């Protein structure tokens, strides 16, 4: 951080404020968090400047801390609730999957949007009731990617749990379901899934 900003950017070196020993004050500030150098230990000008700058850092830190706990500066309950509502929704949205980079910018999709799309796609097949859906992408060497990492769209593997009518023949239904889910996801997002695991976890009477 510069202690003497110049209106048109940094001033020329010879115009910067200097201590009696000739050192640039910005140089002293730049190393304020480090132990004093050999020169600074013995130079009266540098020791005095460091003491003043450390005092300045302490005061600004204290002011920041005061602002943090000042009741006058705390958000009201409605503001806090509004932020928390959006924050909870954002956490549910999960990771992001990059879909495209155009000449104008990037396009990505949230993991929640993708799983909702998969469940919707499955439900378009008559009789299929889609339940939970999870997406896993494997990192290098087959390890699962960290939860904060974006979804690797070249390696999307899903597990979809469904309930089917007890009268439905399961093997052909699985083929149709995989085709339907794969086609709708590809049309909507251009993602071609690598693996679609389907778990029939319930049969219901019709």
């Amino acid at each position, binding site marked *: 951080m510069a202690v003497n900003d110049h209106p048109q950017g940094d001033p020329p070196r010879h115009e910067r404020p200097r201590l009696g020993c000739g050192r640039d004050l910005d140089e002293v500030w730049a190393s304020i968090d480090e132990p004093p150098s050999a020169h600074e230990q013995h130079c009266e000008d540098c020791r005095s400047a460091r003491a003043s700058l450390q005092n300045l850092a302490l005061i600004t830190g204290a002011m920041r801390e005061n602002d943090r706990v000042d009741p006058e500066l705390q958000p009201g309950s409605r503001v806090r609730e509004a932020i928390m509502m*959006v924050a909870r929704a954002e956490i549910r949205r999960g990771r992001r999957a990059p879909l*495209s980079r155009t000449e*104008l*910018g990037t396009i990505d999709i949230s993991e929640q949007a993708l799983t*909702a*799309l998969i469940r919707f796609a499955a439900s378009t097949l008559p009789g299929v009731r889609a339940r939970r859906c999870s997406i896993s992408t494997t990192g290098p060497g087959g390890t699962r990617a960290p939860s904060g990492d974006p979804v690797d769209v070249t390696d999307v593997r899903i597990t979809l749990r469904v309930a089917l009518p007890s009268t439905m023949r399961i093997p052909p239904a699985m083929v149709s379901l995989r085709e339907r889910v794969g086609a709708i996801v590809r049309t909507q997002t251009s993602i071609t899934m690598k693996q679609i695991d389907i778990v029939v976890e319930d049969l219901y009477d019709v």
Partner: protein
Amino acid sequence: MMSDPSVDARVPDLDPVVEQLRSVLLAEPGLVRLEPTVRSTVQRLKLTPVALFQQTFGADGEEPVVSVTDGLTLSLAGTMVNVHIDVATDVDHPALTLSRKLQVLAATTLERHGLTVGTIDVTILSIEEAPRPTRAGDPVPDGGG
């Protein structure tokens, strides 16, 4: 109030742009809504004091001027305007194709305002079945009563 005309001239007011852009985007078939995010909510809350500070003291190369509405963030960095759009889309419209359209629409709108387009990023936060308008003659849904 003292003001520096040269600074005022350099910093365009993005609020009318963000409002018009919002209308243009929402008129596009397939866009269900612009989704609020923590970023857009918090930025909207701190917008007024920050914008006032930046318009008073801002200079080239400093923090960008920002204008935010739910799901839509415009930030001025130097002479370029960067846009971030968070959307919920209708499942009847391919989300990726629609997002590309929204990028082009945003770019056209910015250019119409004489602004230089930086990056326009789109995040699809939801794909859902949009409510369909009921037509005369359609069966009335059972109210469950």
